[in-house]
């Protein structure tokens, strides 16, 4: 019975990890130059859960690709952006692969 419970919990945890968002997309105010983006990227790459970062000045977008089964809490993200000197307007979790997001951002350039 104990073994069955453990197996069930493991399966539930694995399932929960598999439905985690692949990407966190944030709308950020004050993004006007490459140095802004550079500072933000540097802060976000410090998270162990960060696999990749995309920043678009045009879209006021900061996106973080998460490593499999890992996550970063909204409060931590807001703190990181605040500590980088910027204001987060919104945080959205999506299943969009970061490569697709990067492609979309490049295609939509002015």
């Amino acid at each position: 019975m104990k073994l069955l419970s453990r197996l069930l919990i493991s399966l539930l945890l694995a399932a929960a990890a598999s439905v985690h968002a692949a990407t966190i997309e944030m709308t950020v105010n004050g993004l006007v130059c490459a140095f802004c983006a550079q500072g933000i990227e540097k802060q976000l790459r410090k998270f162990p859960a960060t696999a990749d970062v995309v920043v678009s000045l045009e879209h006021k977008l900061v996106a973080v690709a998460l490593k499999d089964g890992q996550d970063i809490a909204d409060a931590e993200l807001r703190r990181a952006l605040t500590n980088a000197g910027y204001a987060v307007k919104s945080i959205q979790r999506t299943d969009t692969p970061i490569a697709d997001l990067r492609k979309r951002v490049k295609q939509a350039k002015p």
Partner: protein
Amino acid sequence: MFRWSIGLAGALVLVGRAVAKPIAFADGTTVMVEYGAGTMTEEQVFYAPRYDVSVGGGHLELDSDETTKVRRISYARLNYLVRRWNLDDAQANVFAWGGLGSATGDTFSGTLLAENAGAQADYETRRVYASLKTDWQGSSAFSHRIDTLQLGLAPYKHDYDGLASWFLVQARQYTGGIHRGVESALLLRLFKGGAWVEAGVTNGGNLQAMAMFNF
């Protein structure tokens, strides 16, 4: 002449600072080298432990283009971001700074303690840039203030991975008998990622150039 020489030193130091924010980003290091109108070379290193503070120092060597006077100034400085406004498509900042340094040269004997204080307000979108700065330097032997206004226009909106280009006009007024009237300059600024290169010419026909790296 002594006051004029030290004033020239301060003015030339500011040529590079006037176009760059004194703090790049949190946990960032800024290295800058500058060649100013044939009369100065300068190296600076600043480290920002937080997005609103940077500390560091630099070394400045001056060779007046009108006399044979030479000045060497080594300094330490603290920069502080007093207030930042992060707007939808723009950013505005107010900075203040202060520092101490030592000056040697051939117009006075020994080493002088030099003090510095200043402030800068700027507003920037991806197409428009404006900044107003005032900077004071003084010692037991001199005191002067330099006020600088910069207006910039980008011909296109750059993005993080692209090349940014800016055209700037600069107007500068000096106190302390450094320069009569307003000095103007035209500058071209290019940057990509953490690398920044800038060059321009003053109304006196002198070249100004700067390279800056943030990492």
